[in-house]
């Protein structure tokens, strides 16, 4: 496998211009929402609102205002995290979701049948159906561009280098330096998803945050969906066994009644007819 590639997003320098969103839509030829008729969220300056099948990049606006002169904006260009241990890839029943030679996670649109298991499996809410293709879609980390040595469209378009693209090991070092720089300035800063020993084996798209992950719409401790499999399957098997016993106890009771009742003594048997 080639070197693992990914994104480091420094949210402190994001200006919310949404150039990354536009570049992504343009390069990947993603359709417009609502037939191109603009819809306003009505409660935020962010009108994209979320990642989905036709928005593979989304600049999230976190508007923390207590009053007109007391508040701050946080901005984060959100995207698929290309998890090292990816829940979507784990549950995909068609094999449409693959790990590429760049250690990124890609959905093959010609294989996906739109069952949507990956949507529920993703702890970040990244994936959704593209209504035009009828398949689940998300960021491919511009796999087609990587194949020919180009950087992804979003990071190329980012005017402030909030989105940085490169080999993950290099990006981690760069991110750590930036955290130290910010902390030296008195700014609270932490990396999210940069630890290869952390949640999901690390994220190949990781972030520098200045508030709790939940504030940015990120889970504190993202987990794989299969964490529940053995326990929930075990309880199901146990309840099936209890139902089986209940059914057999009922049959046995009937048989005992038959034997004890008038004309009893017969009823032996199992068998159940000729079929």
């Amino acid at each position, binding site marked *: 496998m080639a070197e693992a590639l990914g994104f480091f997003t420094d949210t402190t320098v994001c200006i919310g211009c949404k150039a990354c969103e536009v570049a992504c839509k343009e390069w990947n030829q993603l359709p417009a929402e609502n037939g191109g008729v603009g819809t306003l969220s009505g*409660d*935020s300056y962010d009108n994209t609102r*979320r990642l989905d099948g036709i928005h593979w990049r989304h600049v*999230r606006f976190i508007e923390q205002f207590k009053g007109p002169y007391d508040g701050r904006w946080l901005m984060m260009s959100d995207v698929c995290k290309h998890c090292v241990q990816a*829940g979507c890839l*784990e*549950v995909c*029943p*068609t*094999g449409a979701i693959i790990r590429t030679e760049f250690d990124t996670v890609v959905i093959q649109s*010609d294989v*996906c*049948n*739109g*069952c*949507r298991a990956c*949507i*529920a*499996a*993703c*702890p970040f*809410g990244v*994936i*959704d159906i593209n209504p035009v293709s*009828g*398949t*689940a879609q998300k960021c491919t980390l511009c796999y087609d561009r990587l194949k020919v040595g180009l950087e992804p469209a979003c990071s190329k378009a980012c005017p402030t280098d909030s989105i940085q693209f490169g080999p993950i090991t290099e990006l981690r070092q760069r991110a750590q330096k930036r955290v130290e720089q910010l902390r030296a300035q008195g700014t609270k800063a932490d990396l999210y998803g940069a630890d290869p020993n952390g949640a999901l084996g690390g994220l190949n798209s990781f972030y520098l945050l200045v508030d709790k992950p*939940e504030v940015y*719409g990120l*889970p*504190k401790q*993202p987990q794989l*969906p*299969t964490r*529940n*499999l053995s326990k*929930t*399957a*075990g*309880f*199901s098997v*146990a*309840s*099936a066994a*209890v*139902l*089986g016993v*209940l*059914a*057999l106890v*009922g*049959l046995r009771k*009937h048989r005992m009644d038959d034997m004890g009742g008038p004309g009893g003594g017969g*009823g032996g*048997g*199992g*068998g*159940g*007819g*000729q079929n």
Partner: protein
Amino acid sequence: MSDTFFSGAPHWTWFIIPYFYVGGLAGGAYFLAAILAWFGKPEDRPVVRAGYDVAAVGAIFSGLLLTVDLGQPLRFWHMLFQSENFPAVMFKAWSPISFGAWAILLFGLFSVLSALGARAEEGRLQNAALRAVGGVVRGGLAKLVSGVGGILGFFVAGYTGVLLSVTNRPIWADSPWLGALFLVSGASTGAAMLILLAPGRGAAQRSLEWLSSFDTRALVLELLVLALFLISLGSINRVWLSFWGLVLLVGVVGAGILAPLRLHAKPAQAARLVLLGGFLLRLATMLASEGIDRYRVAAGM
């Protein structure tokens, strides 16, 4: 706040909810039919035949619902075979939706075979080819088919809940009891359906009494598992402070479990309520989670 609140809703709604219901009911009905086929008496045969019929129709209907729900229905076979490497099998033992696709296919096959065998036994098959197939499924083979089919039936009834738990969605992934709950509900609704249909197939009173007493026990177990499910949700239970909480309390617990337990003397009436409760259980658990949208949570709305 649970981390599950940051995931996205998969839009499993108006085809998947009926599928979960019908699949559970069909699996439960087949399981009961298989129990009677193995351990019952000749007088139980009408119930066995009705159970096979319910299972066969339910399995076919389930497959159709699942296929129609896909974004690309013509690619349904991608769940069974590798599309780029046909006929290599596509199977992931750790993915409930993958082994569920195989389970519903095999359950359909076994339930149709059993139904054909039962119809051949009654002499109700007009088509020569079907009569030939049905004629083969008798004696020891019929028992073997019903044994394997019974296990598959319970598998289909329960895996749907396991599938929901193996996600990152609120409610579904926050409790390990959903698989057990759906399985027990599948058994109770399967019994209820047989209580309503079997008399039309000439079922003996003793068989119906057995079904009714089984359903009562299954409902008590369902109530217990539902309580464990709610306890395991902990702080997530605040999601029930909604319309779906009302549906769960009034529709599922009240109308679907407690009322049928009180109506024990009127099995047909109780059975109808059990069927309603089983559907409302899927409806409430599915839509309560589906309604939680990631961006709204993140925005504190």
